[in-house]
């Protein structure tokens, strides 16, 4: 700005005419006013036709996008909550199913086990009966054998002592002793 002072002689002469303030040089008014009006009209047309509708459009569009995005976010959040709920439900179902299958298997195994035990019990009791019968047989045979041996021994003893063995009396005596 300071270099402006080397403006030259013709500028100084112009300033001389204006008596100090170029603002009050009325000869320049029509020129300034004309160009001011031209400028304002051009500026108004640029702003009202291009700039302002465009910026208003951008701002409106952004507002719309933000609103939409917020709605979408809300939606997605609800979906996520639902998915979580579904997952938990599926988990609970699966757990219950597993419980049920395990119970069933346990019952089946129990049934089989019971059957096997019953069978084994039956077999055991059968065998025990058989054994008991065999033992009873053996005991009966043994008693008979004892009686025979005792009778025979008693007859021989009587004979050896010089007596005449009365078969019926010996038998009765042996029976009597075996009862005692």
């Amino acid at each position, binding site marked *: 700005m300071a270099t402006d002072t080397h403006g030259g002689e013709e500028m100084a002469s112009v300033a001389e005419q204006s008596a100090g303030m170029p603002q009050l040089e009325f000869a320049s008014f029509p020129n300034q006013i004309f*160009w001011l009006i031209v400028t304002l009209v051009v500026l108004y047309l640029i702003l009202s036709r291009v700039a302002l509708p465009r910026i208003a459009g951008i701002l409106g569009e952004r507002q719309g996008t933000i609103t939409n995005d917020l709605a979408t976010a809300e939606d997605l959040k609800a979906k996520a909550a639902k998915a979580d709920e579904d997952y938990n439900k599926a988990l609970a179902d699966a757990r219950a199913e597993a419980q049920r299958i395990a119970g069933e298997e346990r019952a089946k195994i129990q049934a089989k086990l019971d059957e096997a035990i019953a069978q084994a019990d039956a077999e055991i009791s059968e065998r025990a009966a058989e054994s008991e019968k065999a033992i009873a047989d053996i005991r009966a045979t043994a008693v008979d054998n004892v009686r025979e041996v005792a009778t025979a021994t008693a007859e021989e003893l009587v004979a050896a002592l010089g007596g005449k063995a009365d078969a019926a009396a010996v038998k009765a005596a042996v029976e009597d002793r075996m009862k005692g």
Partner: protein
Amino acid sequence: MATDAHSDGSSLAFHPMDQFIIKPLFGDGDFSWYTPTNATLWMALGILAVVALLVLPTSRRALVPTRGQSIAELTYGFVYKMVEDVTGKDGIKYFPYIMTLFMFILTANFLGLLPMAFTTTSHIAVTGVLALAVFLTVTVLGFVLNGSKFLGLFWVSSAPLALRPVLAIIELISYFVRPVSHSVRLGGNMMAGHAVIKVFAGFAQVAVISPIAIAGVVAIYGLEIMVAFIQAYVFTILTCVYLKDALHPAH
């Protein structure tokens, strides 16, 4: 301004007002009303600045704005909110006119701060036309929208009856002083700031005080940057206030 001493003989030459001289762009001498002058040039540069500020950066219509687009959006929002807050919802339809005024004054003020530049808003012819246009628009609009009820603006119904005629005269005078204060405030501020910078620059010719003078130029330049914005803002918000009077004349 009185320091405009043309001491051609001395070594110290002050020409603080030379920067405001209107000259034709091509050739010397006289110019008529249609001749392109330096005022024309800087008004045209103002238009280009507005295009560069509001039109070019928004051409991509980006959803996530770039820096330039952000500035354009903020400027738009700043003036829009001003009109909405001061004038009310029904003032929004005058927003393009107010935006035109604001952008013209803002760009003219800031372009005028460039070294060697010409400040179109430092001329009373320019600010006077702007202020008169606002004044006439507001007056005509007031009568068209409200009819004779617009005169209620001057009749302070809340004051005691005896005082009302006195107040009406005061209100009437203040109403007609509006365009004068409106235009002189802007033009005077711009002219004074630039002239003061020039005076300080003139003192820089003296080696002894040149550091102080240059520091002064820097300080006042900073002040002028603030003034350039504030004056554009003040002119615009006063326009909104006047417009509000036309739309709602009740006191």
